[in-house]
């Protein structure tokens, strides 16, 4: 029997070699290759790449864990992170593809005929992407430290080098095809243990159905009923009932949906396909591929929760299995025998509860808790790395394109040659990786909190400007710029006040505006953005005729041009 660690080295090693091989094979030769993979990616490949790009360490590791501990309340992530694709496919992707440029600020700058608008969009895009990428590097570090037993910082640096290698060399082209491979790795890694455990617990090989099925022990009790029973016994809420306010659930879900549709690294993927038709189709395929994981995650959450409770609750500490001790070493699972009876009391009441489990370890520990073979555990580690690296690479590309294309080429050095711009893009990717790595090694306390808020920022700033740019011909630069600035400032203010405590002490939840948490406030800031944009637009001059013609033009799919090298 090979140990988990040996298996992990083998599987992670093979997948890394694969990614690097693909990067060398598909390196970029021009800025068009670097920014949009030459504009000739097939809808299926783009769908897979989008899915991998989208599903980050948060989707792969954290989400099922969070749902596992919050039950129904965790639904905000499931609906929020998938529903955004409907908006993307119906309201954004086809038109932006028709418009046919390289980046989101490109669209905003041209549609609003203003370099001020472009710069505001660049700032928003950078803010969103950097908050997001730091969390990914951290995820890489956690996996390395637990499964390969290297220091977290060494893990982050190894991750940086890998990403640097294929993002800098291959640009969008390299990233796209590595992401296709990464999608396969991560979905396989997520599904194998889920199917195993589903069979173990319910006898049903399809986790989506298994979670609603009866237990395998012949008792005829439904798994969810059993979990509700266990939860109430220990003083927790019923698993299938929520504890959050309806209005907050609504606001968070909406902010995540709209934020998804406004995330630059997701939008930019739709610039890489050939036709408008392909943009719609690949959004559908992307969601289908994402849905495989997103409908399995709640099942994994249920299985993990039941297994955890049954393994630890009221059992002697000395008899705890090996995984328990292993995770204790990482500090992500802690046991404090408050009543010194040598048993683990795991209950809702914080006074007598003795076990703290970080939600992030649920997916990683799940195969061990269920006693699955070592190679499955190693596979999960490789899947998690695939999820984190693919998202990090996509984000880094957005950051480097924002700098080299939107700032250097479009504003500071319009005469720069294609070769020069490509070099600038590569250099800014290097700088971006180093900054991201720095945040991974020295995470400022607020990183974890801010990742969820990146969605709020995207919802509050970019989404309204893009939507109005397509659907409201009369929208002008004054309206869009003031909307973006007010929207993102309001969101930043609310975050600073209610989440990060930068403006004095963080006020309690009872003081939230309209009862909406900082995570859900992006919805409010988005509405404010829309209102400000429309009001300001009303009192200022209509956009020039040629801009109105651009809008007319992006509304019909025919006559797509692939983005040309010289603008």
């Amino acid at each position, binding site marked *: 029997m090979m140990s988990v660690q040996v298996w992990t080295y083998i599987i992670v090693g093979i997948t890394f070699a694969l990614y690097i091989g693909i990067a060398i094979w598909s390196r970029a030769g021009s800025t068009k290759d670097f920014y949009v993979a030459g504009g000739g990616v097939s809808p299926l490949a783009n769908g897979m790449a989008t899915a991998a790009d989208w599903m980050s360490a948060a989707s792969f590791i954290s989400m099922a864990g969070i*749902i596992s501990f919050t039950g*129904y309340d*965790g*639904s905000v992530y*499931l*609906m929020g992170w*998938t*529903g955004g*694709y*409907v908006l993307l*496919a*119906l*309201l954004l992707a*086809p038109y932006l593809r028709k418009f046919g440029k390289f980046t989101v600020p490109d669209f905003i700058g041209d549609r609003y005929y203003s370099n001020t608008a472009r710069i505001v969009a660049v700032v928003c895009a950078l803010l969103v992407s950097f908050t997001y990428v730091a969390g990914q590097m951290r995820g890489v570090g956690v996996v390395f430290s637990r499964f390969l037993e290297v220091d977290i910082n060494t893990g982050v640096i190894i991750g940086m080098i890998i990403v640097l290698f294929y993002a800098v060399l291959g640009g969008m082209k390299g990233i796209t095809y590595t992401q296709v491979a990464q999608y396969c790795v991560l979905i396989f890694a997520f599904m194998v243990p889920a199917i195993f455990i589903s069979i173990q617990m319910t006898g049903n090989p399809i986790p*989506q*159905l298994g*979670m*609603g*099925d*009866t237990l395998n022990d012949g008792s005829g009790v*439904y*798994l*969810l*009923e059993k979990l509700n029973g266990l939860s109430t016994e220990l003083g927790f809420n019923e698993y*299938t*009932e*929520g504890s959050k306010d*309806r209005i907050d*659930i*609504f606001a968070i*879900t*909406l902010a995540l*949906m709209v934020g998804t549709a406004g995330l630059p690294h997701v939008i930019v993927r739709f610039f890489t396909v050939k*036709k*408008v*038709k392909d943009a*719609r*189709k690949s*959004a*559908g395929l992307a*969601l*289908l591929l994402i*849905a495989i994981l*997103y*409908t399995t995650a*709640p099942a994994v959450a249920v299985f993990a929760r039941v297994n955890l409770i049954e393994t630890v609750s009221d059992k002697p500490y000395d008899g705890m299995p090996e995984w328990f001790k292993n995770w204790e070493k990482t500090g992500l699972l802690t046991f404090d025998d408050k009543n010194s009876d040598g048993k683990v009391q795991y209950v809702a009441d914080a006074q007598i509860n003795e076990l703290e489990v970080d939600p992030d370890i649920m997916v990683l520990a799940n195969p061990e808790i269920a006693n699955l073979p070592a190679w499955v555990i190693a596979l999960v580690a490789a899947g998690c790395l695939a999820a984190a690296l693919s998202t990090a690479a996509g984000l880094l590309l957005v950051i480097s394109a924002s700098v080299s294309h939107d700032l250097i080429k479009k504003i500071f050095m319009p005469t720069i040659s294609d070769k020069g711009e490509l070099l600038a893009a590569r250099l800014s990717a290097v700088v971006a990786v180093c900054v991201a790595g720095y945040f991974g090694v020295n995470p400022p306390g607020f990183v974890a909190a801010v990742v969820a808020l990146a969605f709020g920022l995207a919802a509050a700033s970019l989404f309204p400007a893009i939507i109005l740019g397509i659907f409201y011909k009369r929208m002008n630069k004054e309206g869009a710029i003031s909307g973006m600035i007010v929207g993102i400032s309001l969101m930043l203010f609310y975050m600073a006040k209610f989440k990060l405590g930068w403006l004095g002490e963080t006020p309690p939840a009872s003081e939230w505006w309209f009862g909406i948490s900082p995570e859900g406030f992006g919805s409010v800031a988005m509405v404010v953005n829309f209102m400000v944009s429309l009001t300001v637009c009303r009192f200022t001059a209509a956009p020039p005729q040629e801009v109105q013609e651009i809008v*007319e033009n992006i*509304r*019909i*799919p*025919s*006559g*797509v041009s692939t983005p040309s090298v010289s603008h």
Partner: protein
Amino acid sequence: MDQNISAQKYWKINLKYLSILLFIWFTCSFGLGVFFVEELNNFKISGFPLGFWFAQQGSIYIFVILIFTYVFLMNRLDKRFGFED
């Protein structure tokens, strides 16, 4: 048909599709999965309380179906107006 008029007609039909599909999108996720979840939880399909199922499973399936419906409708519309690229 004049290119301009047909473009406007095409856009109008597109907006109609969008409003219908987005109405379904909103109803299924926020209606069934959030606002009426407690009422729906009184019903069960197999082991799932219905509202909980919509929030964690059903809404996602519906999202996928909605996008492919839109793809189908728009491909047909593009063909009808000769706007295929």
